[in-house]
């Protein structure tokens, strides 16, 4: 099927916020932010900046007409700092001028006096000082304490994962135009237009119906624009309504990296107990999540970490405790996987350690404990349509683990200074927002009198192909030429009270709503056609390839004739429909429930080669069997999986966020924060979709694709560890990610691999 979006992209014709031609009189905004991570604001002096060329106005917290509050889950974050700053990069003032250059230049003349206060960057330190963003969370299954004594092997340790910069290629940005009656129209690069609308309403103290938020597409989001696209849109709306002029703000890359939160770093303690046959009996884990200076989405992210703490394994006795720790870093936020990867890394580290203690391959333990139908997750849901074992077995049919091991061992005995390593990585990822109320969507479908179709939903297109999936659903139902169907921008005036496009659920929720809305229209049209064709049984009428069939026979009626006649007969050609995921619930008191509509499964085998002289490495091969249900758009799902895996491998290897002890981001540019490039991609990547997988909870038996494949990347870490141990079997280590060339070299040649940068 023709991919309309892609065709515009390759011609450079797709429009992003900064590409829209601005009206005459547009002003440009630039943010002044704190260079101190924690402190008391003693004074703000704007006088030099205000007289700079081109400056129209400078806004601080004093200029906010409503509440100076942007916290989504917990109201703990001001739009602009008032008495205190809590992280380096926290916005303090907004300069508005006649050009972006003038706004930026004036920003440099702002003088803010800040009395420094102690800075915390480490989540365990925050925990020890009782700096928690929300109360601790616990999930329990069985009785771990009664189980340890029954275990043949018990292994304990620490595991840590680092942050990750989203690095959406399009930086954060927004554009606000004042509208009569004190209203405002905002174009925002956001995954959550309703969050933008709601927050503008709160901060500007105007009702939501005066705020129209429109999103055409995003130049990448990955979770980084779920909550954190909001402040910039609010600042533009504030300036635009105050000044009665259009205002645009596009963040410079470095400012974006400094001001916005990232994937949460975690430090965790684990303890795992097994029988000598490899069966895992008990698992205890404590997560210290580095939340940053405000809650943002941290509680929800932590909850998903807890839900996914046993990955794709059944463990009968589990206790997981999670602490969301307040530190003086930018508030960390949603990022593809949403805490799931952090939870899975720890159990994989525990299995790796246990395998060492038992002198077996980690894959032996992994395979032994895969989830089966009827197994209970620690959060009480029972595994259904479980594909953990089918995915593993299907991969093994394609590639023999024994052969891979032999190939690796042979290479390693023949090469002194280069070593290969491999790891398997099964995944299980729950689909649905863990906050049940967010699992809702609606679609508005118009058929115009010429037969063309316009579809509006809550889904945001950010490269993941949700528009093409919805397009395919409508096309399947109406059976008309694809060119007739257009996906509209996401707009809060057309589709209200939307959930953000996140949690991999965009196509599921909005696709289901679209399916329902299209079906209503189809039913209406079929009924009308039946009347026109004097057919008493409407089920005998069908539309196929633009033609109307009566009892299987082609009629002279076409789609366009039918639409035109239906309009003339005063039949509504518009349908709005709503969808909410059935069955799901979660009880926060008992930490039990059925939070997910379904789960996505899969297994990866990752092979690497490590240059033991230099500490550098290459990803040789990635082989995967992934459960995508019945794919709506196989080409899109494949490309999504490939991109997610590379992002996951990046997180585990070269992507390293470094803050110094004063909470200043050291890796604040693309020259210091490195993501996978074309040469870093594996030499070989084979992804197969599991066959015969059904899923009644998404359109046409499909499954969500956005996040789950990210977690295959974790395999790259353990494959590298495997290679390191081939060079230096007695190396001692804690599972600390990412495995940068620096960390790899330190494990190859030093006793303790804790070369934490002292900056």
């Amino acid at each position, binding site marked *: 099927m023709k991919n309309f*979006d*892609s*065709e515009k*992209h*390759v*011609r*450079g*014709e797709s*429009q*992003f916020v*900064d590409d829209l031609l601005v009206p005459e009189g547009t002003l440009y905004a630039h943010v002044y932010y704190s260079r101190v991570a924690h402190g008391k604001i003693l004074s703000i002096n704007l006088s030099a900046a205000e007289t700079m060329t081109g400056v129209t106005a400078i806004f601080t917290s004093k200029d906010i007409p409503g509440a100076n509050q942007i916290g989504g889950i917990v109201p703990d974050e001001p739009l602009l700092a008032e008495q205190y700053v809590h992280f380096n990069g926290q916005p303090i003032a907004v300069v508005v001028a006649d050009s972006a*250059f003038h706004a*930026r*230049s004036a920003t440099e003349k702002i003088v803010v006096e800040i009395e420094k206060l102690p800075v915390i960057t480490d989540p365990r330190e925050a925990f020890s000082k009782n700096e928690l963003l929300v109360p601790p969370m616990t999930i329990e299954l069985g009785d771990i304490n009664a189980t340890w004594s029954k275990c043949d092997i018990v292994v304990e340790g620490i595991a840590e994962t680092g942050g990750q910069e*989203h*690095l*959406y*290629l399009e930086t954060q940005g927004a554009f606000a135009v004042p509208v009569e009656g004190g209203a405002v129209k905002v174009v925002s690069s956001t995954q959550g237009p309703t969050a933008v609308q709601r927050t503008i309403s709160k901060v500007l103290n105007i009702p939501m119906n005066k705020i129209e938020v429109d999103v055409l*597409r995003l*130049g*990448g989001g*990955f979770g980084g624009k779920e909550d954190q696209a909001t402040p910039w849109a609010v600042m533009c709306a504030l300036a635009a309504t105050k000044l009665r002029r259009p205002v645009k703000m596009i963040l*410079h890359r470095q400012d974006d990296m400094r001001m916005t939160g990232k994937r949460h770093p975690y430090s965790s303690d684990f303890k795992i107990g097994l029988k000598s046959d490899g069966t895992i009996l008990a698992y205890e884990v404590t997560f210290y999540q580095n939340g940053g200076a405000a809650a943002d989405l941290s509680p929800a992210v932590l909850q998903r970490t807890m839900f996914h703490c046993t990955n794709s394994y059944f463990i009968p006795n589990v206790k997981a405790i999670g602490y969301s720790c307040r530190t003086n870093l930018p508030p960390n936020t949603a990022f593809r996987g949403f805490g799931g990867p952090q939870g899975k890394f720890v159990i994989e580290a525990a299995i790796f350690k246990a395998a060492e203690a038992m002198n077996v391959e980690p894959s032996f333990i992994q395979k032994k404990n895969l989830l089966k139908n009827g197994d209970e997750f620690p959060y009480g849901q029972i595994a259904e349509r479980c594909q953990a074992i089918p995915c593993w077995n299907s991969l093994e049919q394609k590639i023999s683990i024994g052969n891979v091991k032999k190939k690796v061992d042979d290479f390693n005995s023949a090469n*002194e200074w280069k070593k290969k390593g491999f790891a398997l990585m099964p995944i299980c990822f729950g689909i649905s927002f863990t906050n049940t109320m967010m699992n809702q969507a609606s679609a508005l479908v118009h058929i115009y009198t010429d037969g063309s179709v316009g579809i509006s939903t809550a889904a945001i297109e950010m*490269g*993941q*192909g949700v528009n093409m999936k919805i397009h395919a659903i409508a096309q399947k139902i109406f059976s008309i030429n694809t060119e007739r169907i257009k996906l509209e921008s996401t707009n809060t005036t057309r589709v209200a009270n939307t959930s953000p496009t996140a949690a991999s659920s965009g196509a599921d929720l909005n696709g289901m709503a679209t399916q329902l809305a299209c079906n209503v229209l189809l039913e209406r049209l079929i009924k009308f056609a039946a009347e026109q064709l004097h057919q008493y049984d409407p089920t005998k009428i069908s539309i196929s390839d633009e033609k109307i069939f009566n009892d299987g026979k082609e009629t002279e009626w076409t789609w366009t004739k039918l639409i035109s006649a239906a309009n003339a007969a005063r039949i509504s050609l518009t349908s709005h429909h709503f969808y909410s995921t059935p069955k799901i619930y979660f009880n926060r008191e008992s930490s039990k429930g059925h939070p997910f509509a379904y789960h996505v499964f899969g297994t990866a085998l990752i092979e690497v080669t490590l240059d033991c*002289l*230099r*500490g*550098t490495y290459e990803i040789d091969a990635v082989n995967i069997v992934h459960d995508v249900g019945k794919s709506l758009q196989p080409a*899109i799902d*494949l*490309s999504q999986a*490939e*991109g997610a895996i*590379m992002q996951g491998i990046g997180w585990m290897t*070269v992507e390293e966020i470094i803050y110094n002890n004063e909470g200043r981001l*050291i890796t604040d*540019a*693309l*020259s*210091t924060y*490195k*993501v*996978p*490039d*074309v*040469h*870093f*991609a*594996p030499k070989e*990547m084979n992804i197969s979709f599991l066959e015969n997988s059904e899923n009644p909870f998404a359109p046409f038996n499909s499954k969500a694709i956005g996040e789950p494949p990210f977690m295959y990347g974790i395999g790259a870490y353990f494959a590298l560890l495997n290679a390191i141990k081939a060079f230096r079997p007695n190396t001692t280590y804690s599972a600390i990610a990412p495995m940068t*060339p*620096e960390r790899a*070299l330190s494990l190859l*040649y030093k006793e303790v691999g804790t*070369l934490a*940068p*002292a900056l």
Partner: protein
Amino acid sequence: MNILECIINNKAIEVLANPGIVVLDFLRQHEHLMGTKEGCREGDCGACTILVGELHGNEVIYKSVNSCLMPLGDAHGKHIVTIEGINQPKELNPIQHAFVEDGGTQCGFCTPGFIMSLTGYCLNNKQLKSSEAIHSVDGNICRCTGHPPIKKAIHHIVDGLKKFPKTNGTPLTHLIEQNILPEYFLSIPKRLEAINIAPLVDVHIEEEHMTVVSGGTDLYVQKAFSMHAERTKRISSWQKHVPITEDETLIHLPGTTTVEEFRLSPVIAKYFPELKTQFELFGSTPIRNRATVAGNIVNASPIGDMTCLLIALNASLRLRDGGSQRTIPLRQFYKGYKQIDKKKSELIESISFPLPKPNSRLSYEKVSRRKYLDIASVNTTMAFELNNDRIVNCGISAGGVGPTPLFLAKTSEYLNGKILNGKYFEDALEIAQTEISPISDARGSAEYKRLLLRQLMVTHCMKYFPGIVRKESLV
């Protein structure tokens, strides 16, 4: 403000403009050509990649360039090509088509940059190879696809183009036949000829407060927002084309030699064939197309890749100050962090180093967090001659381990005259550690850089003296 004359896509431009602003801003803000995107403004993402064509005789040579780092003044007399300039009226061209078919585009923000880099590759090569075509996008980052689908697309593009029989024409005519470029490209040479390019004024710097811009690939990173307010003097090499030459004793590089010209120079290839591949680790294709050797030297970065090489090769700089000139060994040029032995008014006219002999050996090593388009954590070069197994004229340089690019004088001196064995080499490793003073920063901790330099010196040794270093002595 200067009068700027150039051709942007198929449109002749004549405008009074500030030559210090970057081409990216001019394209987007003045010409409203929105297909060229701003992703980082430091040449590290490639979303703003354009092609810049320059007249050589009666042919136009196109190079991919980061428009975020190119001063507008350098566009004078050139053909600037953006994605809008290669679009066919309706159909996708084969490069674009392959990106769509193979899922090489998701959000679309980086995509025009990739298309431009690949178009540049096709324009510059008569024989296409997938592996080389992949190198041509080494300056482009795609965060959505992670690049496997882009590699697939590149294979399909190259295979597809190879299928068509070559006419006797140039790559340009071939690409026009294949609908990759519009026909108007044929008119460009004549149209560029008509633009009056003032001969480069003498490189004397007449004013104290003038910033000299060579390639600009580092200056415009460091001063992204102030360069356009500065008085600049551009000395881009592109209009001079003085080649790299050799005489009986020396190899000479004009200061304005670009890194890519250096990498592809027949003279360099004759003596150091491996550098062509190794210098793919210097920046990216569009960076190397603009960055100059002299720029890398005066930039004085402790981890400059070119300086690392030239220090080991014992290069000398010829500095010109108006009518006067002097020569200084590169090893004595650096006086402290970003401190160089050069007056503001002096320019590096040329660089020369001794002509390698048949018994000359060279080893260049660089390790960075990411292999390509990254700045070294540590780099080092070892150059020496072998006289009956004896090391002579040894020169070892090391970058990233001190405030300047270092010449490891004591280590080099220690090895001179020795027939290498394990003990001597271990001594040399220890001496090297006394000559360096790394600090912890974004590129690694001080401890790591010490360990890494040791490892890279071991690597030098293993290339020419295998078996001397044993694993047991290191682990």
